[in-house]
């Protein structure tokens, strides 16, 4: 495949400078996102997934600092944009939908006017034309066109979240970052919105960086996923391959941590212990204190590099490296 990546992240490092010391929230994270692809980021709270998204949009504020790496959007390094270029980039090429986005709508403006505002701030477009486009967008995300003059409080949570997606689509971006976009919603509404997102992606061809702690949801919607643990990528590859054949012990335990309604019922074990404090993370592999398969003398001293196995899977684990060497 000779596809050009839309986004290329190389060795991204982010730290939060606190009074207790530097928290290395993201360490040497690299991944690519291709056009029209859904890339999912998974991991427990505090593993750095939202920090990656905020770094990509340059939304990090002190005490968070990007301490290294490259964030390429096609040929542009996002880290080198000045304020004006950044402002244009954020809406034209990229949109963001947050978890509580439905509460971020302005309560005193109709949803139609909020979509029109976004368009007029970035394009020379007449009000009437913008309003017609706003109606089209609402219809696209499954909201009755008559709602264009409704205020946010007149809509349900699911409808408000759809309205936010309509705003995200207003400038036809190439990338939409969705950080827990359906977490606050009920499962039926969640499914409705996810189907809508899938249809819209087919129609408009944008890429999605999808972040959620709900693994069954992430595996279902993503083409490829990256599993993060304590600020690092431990595994990346095609979603369903990772689900059915996880290589990293953390991924394996994570995939065996959530009950499902599909397939036979089985006992689940979960993961012993808790994620580490990132001010003073464990040496070597950060997962080794919780790993039952840790190799004495190696895992607690040597940091495992992320290595490619086969054509399209990456794993950072000494066990996998040795298994590969043996075969």
């Amino acid at each position, binding site marked *: 495949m000779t596809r050009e990546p839309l986004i290329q992240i190389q060795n991204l490092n982010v730290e939060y400078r606190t009074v207790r010391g530097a928290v290395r929230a993201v360490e040497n994270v690299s991944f690519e996102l291709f056009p029209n692809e859904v890339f999912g980021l998974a991991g427990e709270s505090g593993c750095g997934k939202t920090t990656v998204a905020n770094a990509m949009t340059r939304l990090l504020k002190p005490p968070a600092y990007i301490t290294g790496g490259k964030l390429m959007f096609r040929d542009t390094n996002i880290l080198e944009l000045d304020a004006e270029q950044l402002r244009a980039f954020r809406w034209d090429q990229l949109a963001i939908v947050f978890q509580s986005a439905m509460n971020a709508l302005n309560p005193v403006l109709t949803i139609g006017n909020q979509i029109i505002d976004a368009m007029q701030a970035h394009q020379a477009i007449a009000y009437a034309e913008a309003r017609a486009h706003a109606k089209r967008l609402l219809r696209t995300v499954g909201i009755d066109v008559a709602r264009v003059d409704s205020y946010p409080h007149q809509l349900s949570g699911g409808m408000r979240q759809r309205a936010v997606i309509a705003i995200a689509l207003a400038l036809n971006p190439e990338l939409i970052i969705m950080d827990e976009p359906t977490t606050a919603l009920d499962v039926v509404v969640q499914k409705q919105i996810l189907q809508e997102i899938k249809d819209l992606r087919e129609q408009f061809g944008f890429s999605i960086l999808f972040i959620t702690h709900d693994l069954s949801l992430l595996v279902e919607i993503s083409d490829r996923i990256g599993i993060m643990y304590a600020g690092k990528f431990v595994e990346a590859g095609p979603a369903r391959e990772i689900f059915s054949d996880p290589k990293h012990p953390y991924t394996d335990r994570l995939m065996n941590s959530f009950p499902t309604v*599909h397939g036979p019922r089985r006992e689940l074990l979960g993961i012993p212990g808790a994620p580490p404090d990132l001010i003073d993370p464990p040496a070597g592999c950060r997962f080794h204190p919780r790993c039952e398969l840790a190799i004495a003398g190696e895992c607690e001293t040597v940091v495992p590099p992320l290595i490619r196995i086969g054509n399209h899977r990456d794993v950072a684990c000494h066990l996998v490296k040795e298994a590969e060497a043996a075969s």
Partner: protein
Amino acid sequence: MSQPRKNKQPVLEARNLSKDFHTGGAFTGGVVKAVQGASFKLFRGHVVALVGESGSGKSTIVRMLARLHEPTAGEIFYNGEAVLSQRGRRALLRYRSRVQMVFQDPFGSLNPVHRASHAVQRPLKIYNKASGRQDLRDKLEELFALVSLTPVGEFIEKYPHQLSGGQRQRIAIARALAADPEVILADEPVSMLDVSIRLGILNLMARLRDEQGIGFLYVTHDLASARYFADEILVMYAGFIVEQAPAEELISDPKHPYTQMLLAAVPDPTRGLKTEDIELEGEIPDLTSLGGGCPFAPRCQHAMDICNEAMPTETTLEDGRWVRCYLYEDELAPA
């Protein structure tokens, strides 16, 4: 997993429980029919899951059973005894020591200025479960060990902010256990926790069910965890319990059209997102303006004329399983 013994007495029973909430002013106000005619039984060593979307009335049922809300109609039986007519502090204390609650938010349910020991000590004192300081300390350590907060000595001294969400929820469970309950009402106890932590709490509650014979009412919006932990599942929609079945049967063979829709909406990691053959149309109705019919009828693919006229009664399908839906009424008729 245990099966409910038919001839055994339930430890807690709800019979036709209803709750109306009045909103607004005297002339402009409406009535929210939060729960209508809910009936079910809870046995010792048995887990019943109450599943539904937000606003379906699950928490209102829990609050009535915990005697935090006075039911508008219906009766609660504790070991066969009607409890709603029992008045006074003493009776309420006795009931609450046997029926304890665990809340959703472990960050909000522990007092931040007191150590972990404080939360667990209080019920021991209030319900007179300990005699003397040494006994109190022993009981405290026993409870911390029971919920796997070890080393016990260390955790007893900690403040809530020094604990993770999972550890706080373990303290909330220890606090409930301190009163020596027969039933624990757990209202979304794991929904605010991380995936890897969730399972630890569910497995802990399953152990308490098996080893201590505690009966659980497990309230959740997550069918998958209900299937994992519960013996029996009740599905709620807009204030009505619409289906009851053993957990595995409900998942493998859902009867009520709403249960079918709910199951179809659960993400399936084994395959990609597909357009389902079940339509996921519409939203939960406004509970102030329910008609007399089945509240799911406007969204239901199988809706008939009668569905808009009256709410169907329970149709018993087989042992331990019923559904409130006209589609199954014919199955009552002898073949």
